[in-house]
């Protein structure tokens, strides 16, 4: 039996409070048949979110109070599904990993709730959307907290599906525009492909564990040695040997789920389109929290990936390739949110790179710092979009720092953080990831992964500075009318921006590397690594201090190069980009059109599927067989029988019926006496 943690009733309230908020909105709206007053909506949803944050803090305090290694809080609410050997509890567990995720989700979530008050108030489409928006936002928080708090795979899967649903609802929030609805659907369907992998992983685990089948993470960890040496035959077209380790197969199935949720190749295409949703949603769901669920899941299952080197290497390489690929796609984008979307995909690639190299702490560290700076970047982009009257094209911006001093400054902090300049948060997390890739000898080609990561760091600096320069520097390219009305948004919008800017600037010190800590005489300076020590396996860096310093300096150098290139092209000599575009010609167009991946998917998968669905599944199977023969056919047969045969029994003569009855009764008596 697995050693149990300390039991508490506190944890259930963390997801329950936002759920309550969403329910009050939903039920209240249904009963009152009109929108509640905006003040009440704000009080309920922001209250629920902040209350969840407070409860999380209480849980952290309680967890820190536990002595010894096994710092876990457990809250078993009820048995959800009990079936033979396997039972799924509606149970929550709170260990340091969950604590970090919960703090990010509820903390950043609360800030974004507050920001949304200002952002959605600006939305004058008076269709009752204000309350609907906050109901969805609360529901999302509940699902995300279920995902990170669940102590078994099924609760995690419930949250996993819940965040997918809320993502769908919020991307298509302004569903009056068909394109937004389409984008929501695309996100949902692509996510379903990943969910299929997640489910297969769960089934494989249950099937292979036999008598020890369980869904609970702690029990799984204990039961896993039973299947470590099991191998399975795989189809010949798959790479590698004919017999795969079962753990590798399971790990890959789960990773497919992570690919869908966290927008990795090949399932990343939905995330850029998810920008159709309101900007706070892009910040909360499609940058800070939901898309990191895949990273969280890989870290939560780290005990599995530790014994699945093939799966880990696949994760590392997928992360590296996604990271580079998405960064190149971000370069030619002109839509301010699209740049940030591709940058999110790229940064998620970094996280998977770290997780695949066994540096789970670095991955979670980057989840945290990325949540800070990317939420900041998205929210300040939202402020720009508000000021520009819902114009997202940077071709029509420029010089905005004159009108938006606060926004441009906090955006600058975000850019510095994501580009990896010390002491901003992104430097420390990215540095740790690059270091782990450099020293991960168990991953084939780890040096190349490091090189890709380093190169991408330069690209990241380039496209982020490009975005910054094009938005806030130079001449304003907006029309006269817009320029006259440019103004900073309300303090409700600015306050979360400043809070996030502080986090983005100094959040990196949570994981201050020991090597720098030694300089300043700080013992145990890497707070995050020590905090997560008992939960996540820690890689043993076989790198001496000189190399580590050299790696850090190289990263800063590459970032500086990217910055200088952006400054050269977009500030000092603005004529160059057009010439570069003309010189590169088809290559530029290829990148600008995102390598035509959407078009390829459309031609290879979507369109054949639509044709088969329409021409065969709908017209032949559904309309022809099920409706035609099944439903309508049986009805027609009965009607025909009645019309041509049975109706002649209805003579209308009472005594005719009577004699039928008598004959029938006699027949029954004869049959019974036989």
């Amino acid at each position, binding site marked *: 039996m697995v050693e149990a943690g300390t039991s508490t009733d506190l944890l259930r309230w963390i997801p329950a409070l936002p759920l309550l908020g969403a329910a009050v909105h939903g039920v209240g709206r249904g009963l009152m048949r009109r929108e509640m007053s905006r003040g009440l909506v704000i009080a309920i949803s922001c209250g629920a979110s902040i209350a969840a944050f407070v409860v999380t803090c209480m849980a952290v305090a309680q967890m820190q109070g536990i002595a010894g290694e096994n710092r876990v809080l457990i809250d078993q609410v009820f048995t959800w599904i009990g079936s033979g050997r396997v039972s799924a509890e509606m149970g929550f567990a709170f260990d340091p990993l969950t604590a970090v995720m919960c703090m990010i989700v509820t903390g950043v979530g609360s800030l974004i709730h507050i920001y949304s008050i200002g952002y959605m108030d600006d939305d004058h489409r008076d269709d009752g959307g204000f309350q609907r928006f906050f109901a969805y936002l609360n529901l999302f928080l509940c699902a995300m907290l279920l995902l990170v708090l669940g102590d078994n795979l099924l609760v995690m899967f419930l949250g996993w599906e819940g965040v997918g649903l809320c993502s769908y609802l919020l991307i298509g929030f302004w569903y009056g525009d068909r394109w937004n609805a389409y984008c929501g659907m695309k996100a949902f369907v692509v996510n379903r492909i990943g969910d299929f992998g997640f489910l297969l992983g769960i089934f494989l685990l249950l099937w292979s564990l036999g008598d020890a089948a369980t869904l609970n993470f702690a029990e799984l960890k204990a039961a896993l040695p039973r299947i470590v040496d099991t191998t399975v035959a795989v189809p010949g077209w798959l790479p590698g040997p004919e017999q795969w380790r079962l753990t590798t197969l399971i790990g890959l199935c789960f990773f497919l789920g992570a690919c869908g949720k966290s927008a990795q190749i090949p399932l990343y295409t939905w995330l850029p389109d998810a920008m159709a949703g309101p900007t706070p949603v892009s910040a909360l769901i499609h940058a800070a929290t939901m898309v990191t669920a895949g990273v969280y899941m890989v870290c939560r299952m780290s005990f599995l990936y530790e014994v699945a080197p093939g799966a880990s290497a696949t994760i590392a390489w997928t992360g590296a390739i996604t990271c580079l690929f998405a960064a190149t796609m971000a370069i030619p984008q002109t839509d301010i949110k699209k740049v940030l979307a591709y940058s999110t995909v790229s940064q998620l690639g970094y996280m998977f790179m770290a997780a695949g190299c066994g540096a789970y702490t670095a991955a979670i560290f980057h989840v945290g710092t990325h949540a800070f700076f990317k939420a900041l970047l998205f929210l300040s982009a939202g402020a720009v979009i508000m000021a520009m009257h819902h114009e997202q094209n940077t071709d029509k911006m420029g010089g905005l720092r004159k009108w938006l001093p606060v926004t441009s400054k906090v955006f600058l902090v975000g850019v510095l953080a994501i580009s990896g300049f010390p002491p901003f948060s992104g430097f420390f997390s990215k540095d740790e990831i690059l270091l782990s890739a450099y020293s991960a000898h168990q991953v084939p080609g780890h040096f190349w992964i490091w090189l890709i990561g380093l190169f991408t760091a330069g690209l990241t600096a380039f496209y982020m500075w490009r975005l910054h320069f094009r938005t806030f520097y130079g001449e304003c390219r907006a029309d006269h009318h817009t320029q006259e009305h440019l103004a900073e948004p309300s303090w409700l919008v600015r306050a979360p921006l400043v809070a996030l800017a502080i986090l983005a600037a100094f959040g990196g010190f949570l994981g201050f590397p020991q090597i720098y800590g030694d300089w300043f005489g700080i013992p145990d300076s890497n707070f995050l690594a020590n905090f997560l020590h008992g939960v996540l396996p820690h890689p043993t860096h076989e790198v001496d201090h000189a190399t580590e310093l050299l790696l850090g300096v190289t990263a800063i150098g590459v970032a500086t190069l990217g910055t200088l290139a952006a400054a050269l092209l977009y500030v000092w000599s603005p004529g160059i980009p057009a010439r570069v575009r003309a010189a590169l010609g088809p290559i530029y167009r290829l990148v600008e059109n995102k390598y035509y991946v959407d078009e390829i998917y459309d031609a290879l998968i979507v369109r054949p599927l639509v044709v088969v669905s329409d021409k065969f599944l709908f017209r032949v199977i559904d309309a022809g067989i099920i409706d035609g023969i099944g439903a309508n056919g049986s009805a027609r047969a009965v009607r025909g029988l009645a019309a041509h045969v049975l*109706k002649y029994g*209805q003579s*209308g*003569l*009472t*005594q005719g019926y*009577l004699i039928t009855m008598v004959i029938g009764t006699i027949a029954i008596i004869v049959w019974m006496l036989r």
Partner: protein
Amino acid sequence: MEIPLEHVVGLSALLFAIGLVGALTRRNLIVILMSIELMLNASNLAFVGFARAWNSVDGHIFVLMVIVVAAAEVAVGLGIVISLFRNRESVNVEDVSLLRW
């Protein structure tokens, strides 16, 4: 003097047959109703006879039930007959075959 069970059952069967033939062959609705009543009472007689033969009260209880049903049936049946006569000036069962194909 004890009446043998065979006699009671025989009388019951006879009455039932008379009622059945009446219900099937006569066209007057009132006569049909009377015939049905005859069949019901034939079964009552059989119930009472068997109950007596086997020293059980079940048959008696059934008889009471049948009487209640018969009373209700007559009330409804005669009501229909009266309403029919008012509308059609006829109590001939062959005149009311409207519910047919």
